[in-house]
């Protein structure tokens, strides 16, 4: 096992002059992250609806899209859009745009699955109740399903977005001057990679950590407020579980009120 090299002396003097360049890179990282997160948040919704469609020609392509982007590495997706799209289809996108397209396509797949999970967690009886109260499909989606689904999935959505913010570092492999790319350049120029990449890590952490704290805070609030979409186990489930326990009477029969049922004459 290697011992820790305590002899390494950090030269913090390289940090100050490097900061403007690193902040330039951070600006591009934040710009790309923001565009990708907003676009995915919007595009994920119709994709989730398509994924849940009863019509196969709508559902299957949506599912195929999601699985392709979930089951292949992000770096491969970036490279494919950056290099293969122009070569195969003749679609030439500017470098930054092609990267935004690839990242958005990737995050959209995950966002749609998050939305779908949230929407499907809303108990079907709540939707049927809305139907009985004459709300139409759009109104049920707008007022019953989406608010609950969104509340329930906020922690997951925030986590996905924090991951995406960090995953933008992969774009440095394609030559886009983001935070990681600038760190790479500076490390080569200063010969102090340890200091530079430590600073890069600190900057990523300074952005991501408050976001994860926010995620935890929202999750705690949702749990304590009890306002998440899915309710506690339904009575139906409780009674089913009760029936599964050995020696347990179904609740309906264990009801003491039943003892007061009038006894038929002659029995």
């Amino acid at each position, binding site marked *: 096992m290697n011992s820790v090299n305590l002899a390494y002396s950090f030269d913090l003097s390289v940090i100050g002059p490097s900061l403007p360049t690193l902040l330039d890179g951070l600006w591009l990282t934040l710009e790309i992250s923001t565009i990708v997160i907003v676009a995915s948040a919007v595009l994920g919704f119709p994709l989730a609806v398509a994924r849940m469609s009863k019509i196969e020609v709508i559902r299957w392509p949506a599912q195929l899209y999601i699985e392709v982007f979930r089951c292949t590495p992000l770096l491969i997706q970036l490279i494919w859009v950056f290099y293969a799209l122009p070569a195969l289809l003749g679609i030439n996108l500017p470098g930054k745009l092609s990267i935004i397209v690839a990242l958005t396509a990737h995050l959209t797949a995950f966002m749609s699955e998050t939305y779908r999970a949230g929407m499907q967690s809303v108990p079907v*009886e709540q939707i*049927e109740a*809305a139907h009985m109260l004459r709300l139409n499909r759009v109104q049920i989606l707008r007022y019953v399903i989406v608010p*609950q689904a969104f509340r329930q999935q906020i922690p997951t959505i925030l986590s996905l977005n924090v991951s995406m913010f960090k995953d933008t570092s992969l774009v440095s492999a394609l030559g886009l001057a983001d935070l990681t790319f600038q760190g790479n350049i500076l490390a080569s120029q200063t010969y102090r990679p340890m200091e530079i990449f430590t600073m890069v890590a600190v900057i990523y952490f300074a952005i991501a950590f408050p976001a994860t704290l926010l995620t935890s805070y929202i999750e705690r609030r949702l749990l304590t407020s009890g306002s998440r979409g899915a309710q506690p186990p339904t009575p139906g489930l409780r*009674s089913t579980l009760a029936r599964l326990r050995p020696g347990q009477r179904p609740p309906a029969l264990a009801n003491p009120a039943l003892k007061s049922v009038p006894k038929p*004459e002659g029995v």
Partner: protein
Amino acid sequence: MTETNPTLDKTPDTDTGFDGAFLRTRGVSKSFHGRPVLKEADFRIGSGEIAVLIGKSGSGKSTLLRVIAGLEEPDAGDIDLAGQAVVRDGEYQDAWKDLRGQIGMIFQSYTLWPHMNVLDNLTIAPRLALGESKAQLLERAEQALTEVGMAHHLRSRCTQLSGGERQRVAIARALMMRPRLLLCDEITSALDPPVAAEVLGVLTKLKEEEGIACGIVTHDMAFASKAADRICFFEDGLIKEDVPPDRAFNDPQTPGLQAFIDAVRF
């Protein structure tokens, strides 16, 4: 049908097909994945009448309520509502769109929307579906909550309410749409007996004061014996008996009902 359920207490139709029953079904059937769960059900509920549907789980009683509510499409049969044909040979007729609003349904699980408070739960549907103003709806919501003994919970969050309170709010929410027929699917099965009695008492009051017709699936035989005008016993998808409660409990005509009564009385 008459061969399988000879004790059905039938009321003859008039020439118009409307015999005073607010709801009438004839030969309504429903299958799921090829398995028949409801077989040629002849059923009726009059205005101001409580019909209690009893039977083992899977005997078809909830399916009948869901078919009447429009949550399941019937495979066959006719349904009349307020004297008008809403389903013929399993097909919905034009009158269904106009009359479906007269049916309210309350479910076993508490179907209040937890992200809204009680007032919003009560007012959102009439505001969106009926176009009523907020001021008008506030007054109506207070009235509806008073009817179910929940007037002090107008601004409460649904998650703060107990099971019985939630069910009473669910009834108030259904009342906001001014239904003439309330369908209740095992709405008290998760409640303690005193709370269940309170909830079912609300339905009895609505029947007596508002003349609302109620179709109630319940295993609460104490309630069924006291409040029901008719007991409909379901077995294997068939309505085997449709009789007044004293006859159902004291003089069951079919072995199935006799066995069911014996089982729940223990």
